[in-house]
């Protein structure tokens, strides 16, 4: 770009007085040396000065009257719904921008705080993924330990909720609930030995009063667990002979009669689902024979809410 082109681009800046001292000096220096640019700038100034000198013109005297007639002919526009809403906000007191931003930040922080502290009654726990763990397969055998326990739970993996739902028997077994169940041994099944250990040492349970012929199902969703067991029983030819209403502690007790041959399947399913704890007791006795039908056994299944503090 030539010096003349650069100079001509500075006309507006120089005319408005916005150029710095150095630019002004260079500009004036060029004008002294270049008569063409000097003439150009003079014409530029004359043109701008001429435009600046245009005097304001006055409207004709009857202008307002003519306009009024025209506006009357047009008619007043009717305010719409959104105009009403808009006018509501427009009449609100204006808030200075810093105060508005501060209020915005405050509301945002408050919103996050309240969301975090909101009750969790609507939080849904994700169901455990059905993964069959060979290590968790119960060791079947004569019951020498008190009651039935589950096996193969890794103490490292913890879950305070226990199993949410007991599926139908046809569903694959899932990994047992961790960290509260010891090795399982079961009557009338091969067992690699080992005594089951009571998990009820922390506090006495209903199982202590009932005896060892019971299963305890720990679940945060007792109603669903009960329904699952109820759905499980027909396939195993079992039936519920008595159902106690929910206690004040949230416990439900089912008295179940089940064929002896199906007992292992039922307990296996419950154990494999990790929802079963042992009934406490110094001795373990096999489930009682159902007097009306000797081929069947009587079993108590107790549903309790999740407890904490148990190993």
């Amino acid at each position: 770009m030539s010096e003349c082109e650069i100079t001509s681009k500075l006309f507006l800046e120089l005319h408005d007085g916005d150029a710095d001292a150095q630019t002004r000096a260079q500009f004036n220096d060029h004008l002294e040396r270049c008569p063409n640019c000097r003439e150009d700038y003079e014409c530029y100034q004359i043109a701008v000065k001429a435009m600046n000198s245009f005097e304001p013109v006055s409207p004709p005297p009857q202008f307002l009257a003519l306009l009024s007639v025209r506006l009357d002919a047009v008619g007043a526009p009717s305010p719409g719904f959104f105009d009403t809403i808009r006018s509501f906000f427009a009449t609100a007191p204006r808030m200075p921008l810093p105060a508005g931003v501060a209020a915005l930040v405050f509301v945002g922080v408050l919103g996050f705080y309240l969301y975090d502290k909101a009750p969790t009654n609507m939080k849904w726990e994700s169901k455990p993924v059905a993964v069959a763990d060979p290590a968790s397969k119960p060791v079947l055998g004569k019951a020498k330990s008190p009651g039935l326990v589950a096996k193969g739970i890794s103490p490292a993996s913890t879950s305070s909720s226990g199993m949410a739902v007991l599926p139908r028997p046809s569903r694959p077994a899932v990994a047992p609930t961790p960290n509260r169940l010891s090795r399982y041994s079961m009557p009338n099944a091969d067992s690699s030995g080992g005594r089951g250990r009571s998990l009820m040492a922390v506090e006495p349970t209903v199982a202590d009063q009932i005896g060892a012929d019971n299963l305890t199902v720990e679940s945060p969703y007792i109603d669903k667990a009960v329904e699952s067991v109820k759905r499980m029983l027909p396939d195993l030819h079992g039936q519920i002979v008595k159902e106690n209403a929910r206690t004040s502690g949230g416990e439900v007790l089912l008295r179940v009669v089940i064929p002896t041959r199906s007992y292992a399947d039922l307990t296996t399913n419950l154990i494999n689902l990790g929802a079963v704890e042992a009934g406490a007791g110094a001795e373990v006795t096999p489930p009682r024979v159902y007097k009306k039908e000797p081929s069947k056994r009587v079993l108590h299944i107790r549903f309790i809410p999740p407890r904490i503090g148990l190993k």
Partner: protein
Amino acid sequence: MLIPFETNIQELCLIIVSVLMFSAFRPEDDQDKGTVEECRRGSRKAFDILVEKYYKRIYNLAYRFVNDSEEASDLTQEIFTAAYQNLKRFRGDSKFSTWLFQIAANRGKNRFKYLKRRGYFANRSQGDGQGDRDSYQRELPDNTSNPENLLAGKELQKLVRDAIDELDPDHKEIVILRDIEGFSYDEIAKILNLPEGTTKSRLHRARMVVKEKLKKVLS
């Protein structure tokens, strides 16, 4: 179906935030705000107040586009009628005066294009005598009262006016707003919805065109 507790809180926060954002980011105070709101509610009297306030300046702006008092009067009425009919579309995100001058600049430019296509300005330039336009023009400031200088001044203004009429609509618009009507760069940027830098560069190009025409005649 029971609505979860968190959702209610979230919805409430969203509403509050929206209201605060709308209030916080509203434009600066507009002196005509109250009057405009009354107009929106259908008050003709309120609109007359706005007309009384702005009609002279709008008329001047219109006149610079068309260079004729009858055309300017008609154009000004058209501008105010358009504003009256479209006031409900005015969102209030700018001053009312800015919005009004936007309408005026758009209508003036359109009218100028229309008249230029019809050869209006060419005919007037050829047959132009002194007419009513020149009676409104003041002579260029001159330290002497030499009649020759006065005549030269009037001639010069006529030359400049003719040069402006030959500009393209965008250049004429910005020359009128800045050099004739005296709007600031900031006001022009808002009226034309352009960055200030673009405004200045466009003005510079317009002035250079006028300068070239003037230079040809003077030399």
